């Protein structure tokens, strides 16, 4: 199996597009940070709000959110934590990081994860389909290797590439934060359920990035399935990207129906349990993990069945 992954890895890096994607990702991250800095400089030149004022305003907002009786448990916990942290900061005079700082960029690196999803979809949709369109599939399948092993090696390679992209994302967001904003004073605080304690911004950034990587994994697997089942990379990539953008919108349309709880895109963003932004309130992490697992198994089953049974006539 290791040799098969080695093969796929070699084929992947022999194509120019693989390199272009990595470079593009780095360039986008650096340039978007530069643009943000430039825009902020020209707009907020006379912003004189102190951090105490900001915290007070945010606390008031979070308290008002807690008034809402429809709030789900996960959201309630989040807002309570935020209020507790704000109170702690004001009482003990513990400043947060400045909004434009390297630390804050690291914590929020996950918001750019959709770029990784986008690029992963391109690779995932093409890795099987390309073998069919090039006609190399018949050279690949007339080897003493069972088909499921070949498909597994392709899936693992896709996910390794996605992981690499996510690492590049994390490093380059940190780097761009360092270059354009610099390290700010301040302390990172977390609510552990009973008290406010000091935390590591690196760990928080990594945790959120890891959670949003689940989204990459799900959409990547979906594109992989389409590419395998339809043998057309353009269809797989197109449809996956379309769903990537519209899938989440559909959550709001389905909001009032029970079915929304079993809809894939209600659950793909696992960071929702830590950022308080939950379109559907009454779901739990456990439910999300179960729903995602079921979808994952279905996507994989379709991929393996179509690839294993197909008569190759290309």
């Amino acid at each position, binding site marked *: 199996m290791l*040799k*098969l992954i*080695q*093969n796929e890895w*070699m*084929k992947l890096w*022999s*194509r*120019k597009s693989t390199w272009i994607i990595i470079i593009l990702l780095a360039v986008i991250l650096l340039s978007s940070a530069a643009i943000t800095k430039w825009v902020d400089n020209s707009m907020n030149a006379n912003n004189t709000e102190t951090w105490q004022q900001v915290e007070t305003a945010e606390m008031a907002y979070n308290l008002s959110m807690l008034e809402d009786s429809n709030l789900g448990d996960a959201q309630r916990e989040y807002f309570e934590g935020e209020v507790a942290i704000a109170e702690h900061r004001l009482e003990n005079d513990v400043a947060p990081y400045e909004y434009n700082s390297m630390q804050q960029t690291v914590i929020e690196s996950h918001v750019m994860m959709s770029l990784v999803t986008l690029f992963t979809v391109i690779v995932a949709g093409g890795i099987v389909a390309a073998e069919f369109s*090039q*006609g*190399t599939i*018949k*050279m*690949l*399948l*007339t*080897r*003493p*290797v*069972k088909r499921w092993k070949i498909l597994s090696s392709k899936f693992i390679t896709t996910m390794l590439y996605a992981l690499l992209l996510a690492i590049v994302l994390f490093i380059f967001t940190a780097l761009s934060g360092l270059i354009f904003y610099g390290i700010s004073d301040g302390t990172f605080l977390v609510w552990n359920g009973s008290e406010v304690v000091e935390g590591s911004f690196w760990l928080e950034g990594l945790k959120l990035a890891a959670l949003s990587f689940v989204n990459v994994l799900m959409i990547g697997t979906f594109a992989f399935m389409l590419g395998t089942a339809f043998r057309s990379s353009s269809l797989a990539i197109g449809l996956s990207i379309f769903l990537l953008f519209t899938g989440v919108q559909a959550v709001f349309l389905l909001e009032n129906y029970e079915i929304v709880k079993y809809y894939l895109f209600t659950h793909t963003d696992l960071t929702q349990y830590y950022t308080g932004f939950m379109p559907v309130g009454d779901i739990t992490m456990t439910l999300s993990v179960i729903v995602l697992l079921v979808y994952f198994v279905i996507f994989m089953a379709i991929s393996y069945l179509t690839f294993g*049974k197909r*008569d*190759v*006539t290309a």
Partner: protein
Amino acid sequence: MSEQALVQIKNLSKTIGKKEIIKNLNLDLYKGQITGFLGPNGAGKTTTIRMMVGLMKPTEGDVLIDGQSVKHHFEESIEKVGVIVENPEMYKYMSGYKNLLHFSRMHKGISKKRIDEVVQQVGMQNRIKEKVGSYSLGMRQRLGLAQALLHNPKFLILDEPTNGLDPAGIREFRLYLQKIARENGVAVFVSSHLLSEIELLCDRIAIIQNGELIDIKNVKELQQSRFYFKAEPLAQAEEILTGIGFPVSRHDGGLLVETEPEHVPGAVKLLVNADVSIFAIQPFQATLEDQFLEMTGGGEIAQAHTK
């Protein structure tokens, strides 16, 4: 031939939708023998080959390679097979060497030394580091042969192998195949449209039409001795020759007589005695092409099975 067959195709059938593409095909292939696989377009050659290498699943029947079933023991049976299905498609964005490295990793125990050896054998050592995209069709064919030979297969399946090779290349290729068949005891199965090529290359020919095997012949058998007689009056000549027991058929304004050369003078005497004027007598060599067209009824595209 009492020797155990290396490859046994048993009751192989393939039905797609309602159409029977391959009907109950049985064929044995032997060590050291080159078998040609002939048939008009759409007869099912490629489908048969695809089923032999596991690209398509047979509806019924199985293929045994060295006693192991392609259906049930895919890895063990395919390990012994080298394949070129139609044009050998390679990864154009990689060098020829990387392509071979790629395929070698899918077999057990192929060393770098073996790759270099095969590259030498097919005469690609000067261009092997270049990208396949820059190769000519002939060079891709050579690379295709190289990937099929990497793991020293006992059985080689080639679909249209000489497509794109120049005459010198074809000759070299033919001699090479005959060499590995003779010296290494490799069984070779070649499908081709180039009948003359098949005739020179193969020991045995299997002919398929409309998904059915219609004939298996040894090439030597095909080269039976016949003579062409041009004589007047033709009817009388035919009567006399048939009268003494020669198989006779009309052909191109004369007669075709199946006989050995030593019987020709006797036949001439008989005809002269009966006052038949003889204009020409010459040995008649039917090409494989003539025979092929004869057997497959003009070689038309396979009949449609719809009513």
